[in-house]
């Protein structure tokens, strides 16, 4: 009996991710409805934020590289790294990303770029020094999965109206004055409407923040799963994650300042987080990630 694939589907993860994305969309639609009902001048706001996000979308790879000080390396500069990436890309049929190295001893890795053709996968020197080649391959498989899943694009789109809301919250004073001033014949209502908008924006901002974080965690799990499927070695990613998180939590204090800019992109977050973290963390806790990889290992043995 021929079997098509050694791995099954993870309907649960797909469902949870779909639910979060649905809730975000619903929240945003409600937000737009409220803003329209209160006759907020949306066009200007959306224009500014749109330009901002388009800029981020198109320059995110360069911005992140600049912020972290990572340098793109050629095949001659890092032949071994390129060879691993070559094999992975050929195996998984993902377009070859650029490869960069970040000169820090903290072991970590991240991927940026709006689509697979503009992607840059970055690893730190500490990662290359500490991991075995096959563990490094598993980490690169995780980053390539991010590239393939277009996580930068998905997260940028997902945070669009959250950004609108957060700007409304932060610019409340300015916006309140403006809202009051332009009311004209509804002068008496201007102040009340502005406060209402502010409250709505706070709620939308807080809820979308939690939802975006949840989405980010699910996408991390999806990338872990992708790595296991591409490399065929779930346990290698597991051992890499254990190694990295031990090392990262030990060095987090020292490296906090210089790594903050890239924290959201890393395979393991560089900031030490405690219990509140579970809800607002960009990454799932280590034991959840290890449990998923263990499940895949078992699936493989069936």
């Amino acid at each position, binding site marked *: 009996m021929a079997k098509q694939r050694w791995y099954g589907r993870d309907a649960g993860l797909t469902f949870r991710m779909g639910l979060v994305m649905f809730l975000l969309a619903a929240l945003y639609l409600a937000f737009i409805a409220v803003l329209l009902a209160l006759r907020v001048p949306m066009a200007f706001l959306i224009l500014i934020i749109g330009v901002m996000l388009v800029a981020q979308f198109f320059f995110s790879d360069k911005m992140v590289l600049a912020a972290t000080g990572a340098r793109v390396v050629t095949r001659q500069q890092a032949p071994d790294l390129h060879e691993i990436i070559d*094999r992975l*890309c050929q195996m*998984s049929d993902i377009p070859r990303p650029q490869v960069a190295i970040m000169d820090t001893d903290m072991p970590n890795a991240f991927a940026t770029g709006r689509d697979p053709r503009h992607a840059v996968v970055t690893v730190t020197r500490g990662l290359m020094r500490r991991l075995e080649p096959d563990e490094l391959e598993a980490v690169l498989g995780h980053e390539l999965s991010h590239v*393939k899943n277009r996580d930068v694009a998905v997260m940028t789109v997902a945070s669009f109206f959250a950004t609108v809301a957060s700007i409304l919250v932060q610019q409340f004073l300015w916006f309140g004055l403006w809202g009051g001033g332009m009311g004209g014949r509804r002068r008496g209502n201007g102040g009340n409407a502005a406060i209402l908008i502010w409250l709505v924006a706070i709620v939308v901002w807080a809820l979308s923040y939690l939802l975006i974080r949840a989405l980010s965690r699910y996408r991390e799990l999806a990338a872990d799963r992708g790595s296991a*499927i591409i490399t065929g070695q*779930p346990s290698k990613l597991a051992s890499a994650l254990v190694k990295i998180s031990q090392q990262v939590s030990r060095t987090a204090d020292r490296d906090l300042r210089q790594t903050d800019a890239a924290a959201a992109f890393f395979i393991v977050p560089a900031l030490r987080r405690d219990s509140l973290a579970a809800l607002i963390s960009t990454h799932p806790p280590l034991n959840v990630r290890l449990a998923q990889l263990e499940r895949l290992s078992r699936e493989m043995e069936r």
Partner: protein
Amino acid sequence: MGFMDALFGRTRTRPARVDAIFRLSTAEPDLEEKLAVRYAGRLAVVLRDMEASRFAKVLQEARDILARSSQDLPVTVGDATDKLHFHWLILNGKDLTAALTGARLIEQLAEEGGFSDALLAAMADFNQFCLIYSYRHGRFYPFCQTGPNHRDQSREIRVSAVLNPLLPMEPDPGQWYPLWDPPWDASA
């Protein structure tokens, strides 16, 4: 990878495309005539290492069957692992068609085990260059290694141009992934 797969972050591997590899057999006389090269008597099937214990059994079974059928199939099978932990099942013997038949057997066993996506490539040595068959795309491309991490790309382009009417060649040179230092001699 479709839009929905990206949206939900699903990863799927494609099963290997084994349909076109056998056409190398009919193209062999043309290779000798037009490119003046001879098959060097070794062809390797390269597979990714899989953690599953069943996978090791699949490899062992392939080796056993090939060793047992040596009267019908004039190839001997060797076995090597490269530094990236990929398995190389190396089929030695002058007859290219026999080697391709052996490769077919390996492909079938991998498919039956559910490891079709572990098949990376097949590589046939023609002395001055190698032809690589990619199981992802079901196409051939030339690979001409001239030194450590160094390849003769202009030669590869010429070879590809000559072979284009005869074999399904990979049109995008960005997909001509190298397989450096094939471990031909490491095999028993």
